[in-house]
């Protein structure tokens, strides 16, 4: 069931990606002043660092919690793939590694919950939010917790149910920024790079 959900998830992302590719690269007839290539590289790298990003600097705990939370999501997805591999090839991971991963995922779940609580208790953030925000955060946190639980207790049923829900939601909720994040950074790099605004050569 979870594998089916993962395949469906992949298919939906491929459809979205295809739609972006079919729409083509941005077209701009103005004469460039800077380098698109340098702008795109900057967009994916330095522009994301707290030193260059005021929002990250001003909200360092949230920024850090967000990074850890996302690391947890990626680790959970990798762990899921690893579970499939071990089922097919009958191999396993050393106990120390699974325990460390489990421990880390408990921490990342904590970060997810902290972000969710912030959304619930911050008046302005609550006003900005819609159901998708709560569902996306809830299901991503749950997936990490379930992964940790499976690593510790080897209880497959609840894990695979949660994993299925997560993979089904991933391309539909705001979690689809898994794809659009990269596209958005590309477009920004293209725009500001072309105009000679990025990379920022002076602070």
């Amino acid at each position: 069931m979870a594998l089916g959900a993962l395949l469906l998830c992949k298919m939906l992302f491929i459809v979205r990606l295809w739609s972006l590719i079919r729409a083509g690269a941005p077209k701009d007839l103005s004469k460039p002043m800077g380098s698109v290539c340098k702008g795109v590289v900057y967009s994916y790298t330095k522009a994301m660092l707290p030193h260059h990003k005021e929002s990250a600097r001003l909200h360092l705990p949230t920024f850090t919690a967000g990074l850890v939370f996302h690391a947890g999501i990626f680790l959970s997805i990798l762990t899921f793939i690893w579970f499939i591999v071990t089922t097919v090839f009958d191999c396993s991971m050393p106990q120390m590694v699974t325990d460390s991963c489990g421990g880390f995922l408990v921490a990342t779940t904590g970060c997810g919950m902290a972000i969710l609580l912030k959304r619930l208790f911050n008046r302005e953030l609550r006003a900005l939010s819609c159901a998708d925000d709560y569902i996306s955060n809830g299901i991503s946190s749950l997936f990490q917790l379930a992964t940790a639980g499976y690593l510790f207790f080897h209880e497959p049923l609840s894990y695979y149910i949660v994993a299925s829900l997560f993979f089904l939601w991933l391309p539909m909720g705001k979690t689809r920024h898994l794809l659009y994040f990269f596209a958005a950074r590309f477009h920004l790099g293209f725009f500001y790079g072309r105009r000679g605004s990025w990379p920022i050569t002076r602070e």
Partner: protein
Amino acid sequence: MTTPPDSKLQTHLNSCVRCGLCADSCMYYKAYKEAKYIPAAKVKIVTAAYRRFPKKKISEKMLREMVDLLFGSCTMCGRCVKHCSIGVDIPYLVRKGREIVAAMDKVPSSLQATVDAALRSGNNMAIPADEFRDTIQWMEEELQDEVNDPAACIPLDQPQKNIHYTLNPREPKFFPLSITAMAKIFYAARERWTLSSKFYDVTNYGLFSGDNSAARQIAGNLYDETHRLQADRLVLGECGHGTRASRWEGPNWLQTACDFEVLSAVELMGEYIRQGRIRLDKTLNQKIYTLHDPCNLVRNGGLCNELRFVVQNAVVHLVEMTPHGVDNFCCGGGGGNLAMSEYNERRLKTGAIKAEQIRQTGAKVVITPCHNCVDQLIQLNHTYKLGVEIKTVAEIVADALILT
């Protein structure tokens, strides 16, 4: 949602995660501390509008909200973009939202009147041609006095010159001495240049109204006039959004690459300094100066360093604002807000951030290469009792010129 054809639009409509971290980057939120002013709230309403438009109807209530948020609560300054966790191009989406509002004929009437005036008369203040000619003639006499040369001139409608120079209509209307300042720089550089008596307006409020056909027509006026005058270069006077409209957006509106060079007055002054065509004595500008970065020239136009190169060659003491450059706060007058009297109170309140930035520098003169910013800064100076002078870059460069 219907899939829009443009990959940039698809991307940005699907990217916001409503983390709210962009809030503090926006002067509207900083001034009001209300959720509706968070940049993401503007993204949210545009995304919602795209779910409906054009297939389904947008309700009157939603349309009113769109006008208030997209016109009255955003200057399209782009400060939030760099600080967005994902990289959502918020002003791009705001402009897209404005396109929807324009398509439904709901652009704030004052802004629409500015666009209409430009379409009707060739300049956004509907200055009659005779009045413009008289002003230019008067400024020519000022120039002759200033450089002590009766042959010094401000050429009008002269074909086959190197430069077709453009103005913000605020110059002939309210600040004619800035025309003399630039003319003095041309004089010192021995430039072959001309103004057009019909299409000299560098501004393009179609950029802000969201009406692409108006924007195209206004941009086309300048391009056609440059062709008619057979000028080699179109030099855009000191106007942030006008430069953006003609330099960056115009070719796309017109669907054609320019066959002449388009550059801003700041770049031209930088070029003159580098080539030694003008010489400056910065000790002639001895006060404490600060620099306001117009969003459309610096953050959205790549002129951060060039602007500083010119200014640092023209003044002794430059104190930067915090933050400055690509991170600078908008003055509050951008996005067409100066033209929208409906939002005057809000514009002045959000401008408090800029006023405080200026105060902190201790400067006596604020330099900015944008006449719209000049206008807003003059109002902030008055409202917040800053006690500063506001000058354009051409004015301080002209003041530092060594005429041989």
